């Protein structure tokens, strides 16, 4: 059973390489997108930290800014 799943009558090399390529493409796209997201978010937090209190209060009054600062999205 296991042997058949691995070798697939000689077609295993083709099937597994197609699935592996798909899997690696998914991981690469996810990692690149995630790193871009984290970079922009960190940039936002750093910039927000440099604002004086009046500007920071104004920026915090905007719903998206509040959401970015409070968002703890782990994904």
């Amino acid at each position, binding site marked *: 059973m296991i042997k058949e799943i691995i070798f697939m009558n000689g077609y295993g090399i083709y099937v597994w390489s*197609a699935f592996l390529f798909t899997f690696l493409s998914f991981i690469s796209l996810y990692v690149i997108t995630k790193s871009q997201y984290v970079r922009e978010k960190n940039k936002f937090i750093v910039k927000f930290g440099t604002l004086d209190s009046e500007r920071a209060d104004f920026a915090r009054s*905007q719903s998206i800014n509040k959401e970015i600062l409070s968002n703890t999205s782990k994904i």
Partner: protein
Amino acid sequence: MFKFLEPNRIFSITSKAPRYVFILFIIVFFIGLFEALVLSPEDYKQSHSVRIMYVHVPAAWISIGIFSTITFLSIIGYIFKIKNFFLISKSLAPSGLVFNVIALVTGSIWGKPTWGTWWAWDARITSMLILALFYLMYLISWRIYDDNDKVYKISSIITIFGIINVPIIKYSVDWWNTLHQPASINIFSQSSIHESMLLPLLIMTAAFALFSLLIFLMKYNTELIKIKNKGLDRL
């Protein structure tokens, strides 16, 4: 008209949604993999190589679907001046390109044991390659132009030219004598694929759609934060 889609209103949803979409994707993807690699039967002609279909076909469907969506949003966005539609289109494009590349590469891998060649300049394969070039041009246009009005115009023109290729991809196997087999699944008529193969195919399509939704949400949130970063500079 499309006020309910404004970033201010939907960011609270788009910023939290990725984690739930990710969990759902993992569940559906592993069910799909088990169905595709273990439970589904081998083909009487192609033997086990038919299993490549479970990654090749969903990838092709989704890349074509994403390009059609991008075109629709770009045209509507350009006519009604809805900037958010361009942002959505831009966020959809990377996953569309990756699915297009997956379709081409897995198709090439499938071609070797079934046709005896990795590549053929056949109408279906060539038109899919052309779609990948349109995806590239679309993404490059966003990198080249800083001026928003210019990039909206150029990217819309690229999608309008690119969408001409979509019916060519769909009907290439009927219009020309190609190595690529004709469609096995028809929405409006009887499909020639057996349900034991259709089920894993649909599950894998759902998994791929969830993955593209996940990437779209992450990319869209990144684009919104980028805009907000520029807003902080202006304060």
